[in-house]
């Protein structure tokens, strides 16, 4: 019998499920809508999943044991296709990142291209996917002062995260390049390029 994960109340129709790590987050996110009825929102975080029931519904009393069953079943993980994102390494912070990580700019690019990433969760803005799984030596801290405007499609690093900004916005991440695809596009199906659990590789392309 699997142990129920810690549950925390979020208002009267939400529950925050605390999980041991992002791999478990991806696993639960992939299957929870099929296993638990009446969910309006399933929002992955780094180590949590927020479940929100539809208006008028309440979380079931046996939620903990039902989540334990879901997490205990080994089958859940699907092997996601790898999404390739073409990028140019032309960001204004490439040299700073190289310095912070004690390597050459070319080495930053080489290591960044070498990893296969996984979408840990999506938040902050429509289509903003937090990518995990980058090179452990390539984890520059956030900038001391955020930029007022980070251009759309900026390829950025902050700590263990990598992301492509879907739209221009304020931001404190280190900009190392530019993607040649929109992470979120209302005129495309699917509108969001990436979802939690997807795998990503970057490929270098001239601007």
């Amino acid at each position, binding site marked *: 019998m699997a142990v129920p994960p810690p549950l925390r109340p*979020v208002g*009267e129709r939400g529950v925050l499920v605390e999980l041991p790590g992002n791999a478990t987050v991806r696993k639960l996110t992939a299957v929870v809508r099929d296993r638990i009825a009446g969910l309006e929102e399933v929002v992955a975080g780094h180590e949590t999943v927020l479940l929100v029931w539809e208006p008028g519904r309440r979380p079931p009393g046996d939620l903990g044991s039902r989540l334990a069953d879901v997490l205990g079943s080994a089958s859940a993980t699907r092997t996601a296709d790898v999404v390739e994102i073409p990028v140019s390494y032309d960001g204004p912070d490439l040299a700073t990142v190289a310095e912070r990580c004690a390597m050459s700019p070319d080495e930053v690019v080489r290591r960044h291209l070498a990893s296969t990433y996984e979408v840990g969760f*999506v938040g902050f803005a429509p289509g903003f996917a937090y990518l995990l799984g980058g090179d452990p030596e390539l984890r520059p801290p956030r900038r001391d002062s955020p930029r007022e405007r980070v251009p759309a499609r900026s390829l950025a690093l902050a700590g263990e995260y990598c992301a492509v900004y879907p739209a*221009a916005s304020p931001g404190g991440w280190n900009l190392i390049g530019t993607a040649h695809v929109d992470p979120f*596009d*209302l005129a495309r199906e699917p*509108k969001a390029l990436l979802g939690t659990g997807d795998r990503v590789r970057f490929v270098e392309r001239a601007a």
Partner: protein
Amino acid sequence: MTGIDAAAGLAPAVAHDDAVAVVVDPGARTTLQDLGRAGLAHVGVPTSGAADRAAFTLANRLAGNAEDAPALETTLRGPTLRFTRAATVVLTGAPVDAQLDGRPVAMHAPIPIRPGQVLAVGTATRGLRTYLAIRGGFDAPLTLGSVSNDELTGLGTAPLAAHDALRTGDLALDQPAVDVAPVAAPPTTPNLRVVLGPRENWFAPDAVTALLTEPFTVSTSVNRIGARLDGPTLLHREDRQLRSEGVVAGALQVPPSGQPILLLADHPTTGGYPVIAVVIGDDLPLVAQARPGDTLRFSVASFTTPVADPQRLP
């Protein structure tokens, strides 16, 4: 240009034959709202939709519409509209001294309008957001299933601008069953019921006591994303960083400064500050009507959820 920047505008400046009204003055910030775009938080899209859903759905019921028909939501100072066709409109939400061709008109009741008449919604005497529903609903393109203007992302219909032409839709039901609704005036010091958590254990022990016993004042930083509150400082127990997690409307998110932010309809889907408590859904209309300078009090909601024990006071 990304898809997000491409917010659909209302109809172009010149009034077309099928317009029902033209915007003379848009007011402070007037947006078209419906019940929003729930179910997309996993791709980072806020729910959005009418901030005060009780007032919004009441306006539609009184106008004889489907409950989710698009209506205008004002912010403190409402718009002035010149009607080019006959229409029936309803005002609900924050009380205003609205005038039709200079004569006062009542709230919470259908207002028949003839072509050529001018409706000045006016400024809210209390509260913040007035709703103007029109029989048939307003017509505008859907973005991700909703017309709602989302202040965080710019998704949906652009805010009203002078000379915009407004059109009606086909969301009228049968003639309304009621023509006047008794509505209590909004309380001067709303008591907002909360469920503690999910992160009340991140706070110093006296923070939860302060939240539940001391008054807070709504600051001047108020929009549809959230409202900053002034009041007792709700200090974190220790200096550590929360990893981003999903948040909901009504959440009291507390940055290290200790001054809480009460999240509203257009809040980001995830946040990195601990949430000390969440206002229950029934009290979100009171949150939506809180204006700068208003006093708010918080108390623990008296029902249980399977994972919350409302009796666990500090």
